[in-house]
């Protein structure tokens, strides 16, 4: 009885976080049933995650931008433009991949810092500054692709980023060994870090959840990681896109939850005046957040260009809005100071699952847009209602 009560309070306190996972679960289950299991097939999940990659990394950056009460509309075409530049560097200039990628990422940071400069130093509203950026990069993308049209990339190493998979080492019963090992390692790492956190908390005599709940949580999360690993290992294993996406999430999750910089970002978001008076350099934080957004836009451009194996004249169209939608589905608040990086990824996967599932069912594009719009409203509505109840 005590156990059930504890579970109930936990759910009540964390309803917003759990709600997102429940929604994802419901969506996946529904599509699985409606498609006779086709949705959860190895091939489909692998494709789904790969096609989420370039939006997911944008959503991570966008979450932080929204947390500090700004918006960045320029990232879509910035990604498209930087992707085209990558294609030009690779094909026309003949630069190798290992030079191209850092150059593009640096360019992205530079673009982001420029946005940050307009917004922080000259106090131009971020909506306007980045709307201008959106127009400029759209023009720039057209300009660099004007003469050639679509630029086809023949560099295998570059194309592997969006299409390739990590080596399998060995196939065991039709499953890719290295992917299995990675999955197993992440489960072990997860269990180890959870247990050591808990042990530390007990050492300092802080509240922890009861052993029963703790065990259930460990088993549940491990099972999910194991299941996803098993599904992916059954197809081609982890793709490079998934690996990159995971690295971005882990890095940003660490940055936002464990570091001084992360805490300062949330402080600026929840009260910029108080942050300034607390000795936090608000302008510097703005530069960093927009700089990181620019870098992730560059990464998104690389992922997308590599996935298409070419740079097109319309690359990046509406990416920024997809990223914003994913961030909001993931629980970010436009009032500032609230929103998690992990939420952004789940938000991106929810939106991608909807597209993928509806594609499998043969739902028309017109309906797809409307349904995705509805889900966005529902997610934010749920957020508002649960927030009100707690406040």
């Amino acid at each position, binding site marked *: 009885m005590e156990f059930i009560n504890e579970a109930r309070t936990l759910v009540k306190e964390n309803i917003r976080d759990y709600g997102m996972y429940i929604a994802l679960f419901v969506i996946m289950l529904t599509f699985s049933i409606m498609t006779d299991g086709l949705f959860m097939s190895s091939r489909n999940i692998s494709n789904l995650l790969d096609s989420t990659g370039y939006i997911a990394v944008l959503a991570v950056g966008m979450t932080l931008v929204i947390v500090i009460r700004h918006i960045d509309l320029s990232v879509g075409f910035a990604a498209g433009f930087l992707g085209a530049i990558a294609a030009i560097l690779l094909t026309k200039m003949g630069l190798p991949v290992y030079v191209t990628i850092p150059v593009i990422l640096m360019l992205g940071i530079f673009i982001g810092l420029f946005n940050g400069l307009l917004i922080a130093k000259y106090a131009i509203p971020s909506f306007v500054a980045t709307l201008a950026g959106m127009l400029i990069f759209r023009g720039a993308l057209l300009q660099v692709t004007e003469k050639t049209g679509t630029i086809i990339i023949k560099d295998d190493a570059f194309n592997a980023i969006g299409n390739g998979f990590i080596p399998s080492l060995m196939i065991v019963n039709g499953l890719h060994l290295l992917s299995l090992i990675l999955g197993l390692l992440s489960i072990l790492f997860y269990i180890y870090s959870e247990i050591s956190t808990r042990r530390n908390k007990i050492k300092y005599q*802080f509240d922890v959840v009861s052993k029963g709940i703790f065990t259930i949580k460990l088993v549940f999360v491990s099972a999910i990681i194991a299941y996803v690993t098993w599904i992916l290992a059954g197809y081609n294993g982890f793709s490079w896109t998934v690996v990159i996406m995971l690295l971005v999430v882990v890095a940003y999750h660490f940055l936002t939850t464990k*570091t001084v910089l992360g805490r300062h970002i949330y402080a600026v978001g929840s009260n910029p005046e108080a942050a300034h008076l607390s*000795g936090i350099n608000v302008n510097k934080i703005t530069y960093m957040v927009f700089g990181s957004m620019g870098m992730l836009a560059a990464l998104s451009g690389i992922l997308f260009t590599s996935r298409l194996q070419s740079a097109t004249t319309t690359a990046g169209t509406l990416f920024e809005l997809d990223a914003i939608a994913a961030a909001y589905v993931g629980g970010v608040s436009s009032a500032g100071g609230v929103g998690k990086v992990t939420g952004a990824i789940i938000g991106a996967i929810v939106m991608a699952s909807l597209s993928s599932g509806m594609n499998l069912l043969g739902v028309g594009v017109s309906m797809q847009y409307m349904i995705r719009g509805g889900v966005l409203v529902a997610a934010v509505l749920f957020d508002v209602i649960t927030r009100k109840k707690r406040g």
Partner: protein
Amino acid sequence: MSGYILEMNEISKAFTGVKALSNVNFKVRKGEIHCLIGENGAGKSTLMKVLSGVYPYGTYEGDIVFEGSVQQFNKISDSVQTGIVIIYQELALFPDLTVYENIFVGNEVKRGNLVDWNQTIAEAKKMLKRVGLDVNPETLVKDLSVGKQQLVEIAKALSKDVKLLILDEPTAALNEDDSENLLKLLGELKKQGITSIMISHKLKEVISIADQATVLRDGKTICTLDASKGEISENMIIKNMVGRDIDDIYPKRPHKKIGKTILELNNWSAYSTELARHVLKNIDFHVKKGEIVGIAGLMGSGRTELALSMFGNPKNYKLEGQLKVSGVEKTFKHTSDAIKSGIAYVTEDRKGDGLFLIQDIKNNITAANLNEVADKGIINENEEVKRATEYKRSMYIKASSLEQTVGNLSGGNQQKVSLGKWLFVGPKLLILDEPTRGIDVGAKFEIYTIMNQLISEGMSIIMISSELGEVLGMSDRVYVMAEGRMKGELPIEEANQENIMQLATQ
């Protein structure tokens, strides 16, 4: 019915298991000024929210009887229609609209379906006359002083045929003159037959104006005092509010150990490009180790500007003159430079620019000095919680856990979090801007005790305060400011209410 305009009988209200009000009885006679007093968190605001329909009928227990009949308010407009208007501490005016638009917003004077602006202005003039406010109704509200804005609020209430006017700490943001005017106006309105309920922390006001006063404590009615029976006195009120006698609200420091000058300003001026005028002019000022320096003055006299100008200048004033910390001249480019030099500033507006309201107590306490609990930029969470717990204890912060959101704490506890946040920086000089505004007597006492503790540990404190009692009770030395200038410096032995007010109004 027995002369009561309002009877609230056996009102109870709970929030997720916590009783905010239990069986409160509150009776207001027709045509009187009734003060509602109690420590923060005693349930005054909750009671008024029940009355005004913010908490609709059915979410509380008990009856509201207004003019003899039981009322069932489902929303605020229901209570307004009945003639009950509440004016909150944070004014609900539109700064960019004119006075007349503000008075009739939501209650427009119409001809057919269109607004009749000429009639509106004419009516607005009548209302302004009733509240004794002599301004052009076409003035924008943002161009009025806070005191005048308050009068606009009251004019707005009058335009709605108010019978019962509720004022939530109406004088908290006013200077002494404006406060006095406001109290006089309440007296006038009383003559016109309007009943008022006033929530106030300022006991002197209560004593001067109240016909009756009801004291709440811990969500219960403690007593109702009657002025005509001579029951309303400072002692009686405080005793009932805190449930104990407070002999001295300003605890004495056992011995003073005043050391070398820690901060010094010479010929210090600040020019605000935004306001296109000097906010500070030729100020000489110093603070010594181990002393509390009081800065008195009226609103807008430049006290907060002085604090900001020496705390890294966040408002980007153009500064002139010399600032020395422990004898060394310094130029602070950012608040972080001032913090590094050992200065901390606890803001006047703790909700606006002091605290991160949506974050928890722990994050607020460590916010200004996270590197203290971090190694190479990575936070040691266990260490952080440990340190924050110490401050929660030593600041007497009353909360169930460190993870409680600061926005949900009472004013006094918020102020203690704010103080804790700055002590965590380990300052040599603490600037407190209105440290006890809007907090109850008990919490005030605790904050004074903490201040004395800090002084005995060798810290210096600059205390900006509009409460003369506090300035006189706590300071070792008093500066008086007016119009951005330092008007005088008084040793505490020579300072009294009269000479301070004289300098402040020069």
